[in-house]
């Protein structure tokens, strides 16, 4: 029987090998993001890919997690996000040092992807968490860092992206005070982003409350002009109750700090945004880039999450989805690289000399025809090829097919290649 065994040698659904140049773009973006995180005083941590299933409370996240069993038959899961593991870490491992803890991470997370929805089962997140401070200055500080990161990577606000900012305690607080019976159904409708259902439910309420319930979650506008907050305050009027009033005041303070950071122009207010996770308690935000239908980053305040781990510490933070981020970045030239063709000792010596003058060199220890050398150079994104030519000279050729060579001295190579 000569039947071939059926083997699965592809990557599993939703996962993939990331190859150059995409892997280079991903890792470069990761490096630059880390550099900005450090500039704002965040220190990077690494947590295990596996967590006990109990660590995660959010039902939606538990449902989408990959699960497995440890030797004691405990349910484990592959982390579907980083906020909860960092909350666990802060409560468990940092108890001896004074808060606030400013922690960052850049790690892959795992979620069961639905087939046919273009989703990945493994993707890379980079983010920060500030644990142990309830100050609106920290909410604004993390938003400003996020804007800084996106701008460092070449995106401009508001043309290329915007941070959409809401306050999950505002609408919820208003409802708990003004329409407590309808509140759970209204919040469920808003969480499903079903404003039609909000309209339907509002019709059973007294006129003024109904109008406020209907219009508040539809208030969207630039943060730089005060109209959204003014309208929110007008609808709330004397109906609001302390929680909603405090939430609006909290937003005003965050906006004042964002103004001081010089990034108020990047923010859009949306009082219907209450965040996709149940653990959000205050300011919540999502980053949208033009031309991409999904969030590039999202974050917010989660003051109750650490109670789960036995510590009562307020916290705020965000996560950037790196694959989505690099998909919207402006195109960048490949890093300079020279392919030096030659298997001789002389070629090896030349390669070393060139590297010490700062030129990245890939020595190809084969004697290839110019056509094959050019094909090889293009396959590794090298713009230049060179051949040793006598004691003091090199033949330098651009890797595009049909290019003419020039004779240069080893010292002259850097000037051409690193231009």
């Amino acid at each position, binding site marked *: 029987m000569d039947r071939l065994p059926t083997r699965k040698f592809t990557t599993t659904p939703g996962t993939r090998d990331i190859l150059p140049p995409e892997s280079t773009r991903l890792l470069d973006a990761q490096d630059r993001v880390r550099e900005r995180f450090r500039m704002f005083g965040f220190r990077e941590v690494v947590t295990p890919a596996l967590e006990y299933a109990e660590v995660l409370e959010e039902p939606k996240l538990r449902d989408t997690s990959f699960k497995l069993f440890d030797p004691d038959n405990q349910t484990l899961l592959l982390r579907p996000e980083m906020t909860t593991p960092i909350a666990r870490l802060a409560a468990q491992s940092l108890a001896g040092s004074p808060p606030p803890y400013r922690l960052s991470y850049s790690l892959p997370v795992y979620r069961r992807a639905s087939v046919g929805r273009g989703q990945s089962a493994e993707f890379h997140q980079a983010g920060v968490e500030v644990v142990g401070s309830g100050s609106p200055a920290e909410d604004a500080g993390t938003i400003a860092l996020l804007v800084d990161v996106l701008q460092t990577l070449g995106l401009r606000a508001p043309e290329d992206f915007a941070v959409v900012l809401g306050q999950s305690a505002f609408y919820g607080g208003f409802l708990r005070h003004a329409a407590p019976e309808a509140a759970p159904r209204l919040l469920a409708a808003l969480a499903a982003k079903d404003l039609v259902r909000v309209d339907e439910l509002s019709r059973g309420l007294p006129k003024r409350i109904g109008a406020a319930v209907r219009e508040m979650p539809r208030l969207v*506008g630039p943060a730089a002009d005060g109209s959204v907050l003014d309208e929110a305050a007008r609808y709330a009027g004397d109906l609001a109750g302390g929680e909603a009033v405090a939430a609006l005041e909290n937003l005003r303070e965050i906006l004042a700090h964002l103004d001081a950071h010089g990034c108020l122009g990047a923010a859009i207010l949306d009082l219907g945004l209450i965040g996709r996770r149940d653990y959000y308690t205050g300011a919540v935000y999502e980053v949208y880039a033009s031309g991409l239908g999904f969030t590039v980053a999202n974050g917010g305040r989660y003051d109750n999450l650490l109670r789960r781990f036995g510590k009562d510490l307020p916290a705020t933070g965000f996560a950037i989805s790196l694959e989505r981020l690099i998909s919207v970045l402006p195109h960048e030239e490949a890093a300079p690289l020279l392919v030096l063709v030659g298997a001789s000792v002389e070629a090896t010596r030349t390669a070393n000399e060139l590297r010490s003058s700062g030129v990245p060199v890939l020595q190809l220890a084969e004697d290839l025809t110019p056509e094959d050398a050019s094909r090889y150079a293009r396959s590794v994104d090298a713009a230049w090829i060179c051949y040793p030519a006598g004691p003091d000279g090199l033949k330098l050729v651009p890797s595009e097919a049909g290019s003419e060579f020039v004779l240069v001295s080893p010292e002259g190579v850097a000037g051409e290649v690193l231009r």
Partner: protein
Amino acid sequence: MSGLRVAVPKGAIFEDALRALGGAGLPVGVLRENGRRLVYEANGTEFIVSRPSDVPVFVEYGAADVGVVGKDVLEEQEPNVVELRDLGTGACRMILAAPAAEAAEVEEAIERAEIVRVATKFPRTARRYFENRGRQAEVIALHGSIELAPLVGLAECIVDLTATGTTLRENDLVVLDEISSSTARVIANRGAYRLKNPEISVLLKAMQPEGILGG
């Protein structure tokens, strides 16, 4: 000049969608000119025409900024989009139906929690309906001619959409239960809803039927 890309569904609610969008000042006339194109452009607004069940997909992925689609499709797919306006048109009902001769028998089988086979274009809706009744059903997903399934013994009953009930009567099917009712909705991509909010707000305001939100 709205600068928006709008997804319009073919079929039953095409005319309703055009009337609503046209009433809001969008240049929908271009959609009537040539029935074979897929993308139409006029005065800065782009229209794409697709199957109703694909409209939420285009909108969720940001390939269209806004779209018009029946609530039945939204309930079946649960896409991550913002649902903004009920147009009140294209009304229809999601129903459970069975051949008149066997209706009582099917009803009894469901009561006794026997497994029944259900043919439908809306498998998630059907499963949810039976789960809410505390029952399990064998759901068979088909893409068209659902009424055929009980006639040839593929299924005992169907979950389907009906506007007038004509097709049901013609095939001698009777309604056992009404699952939900549906009308045409305006949906928007989550990003476009924020980044193009001024344009989308203008569109929604112009579409708002007068008096509907008065009380």
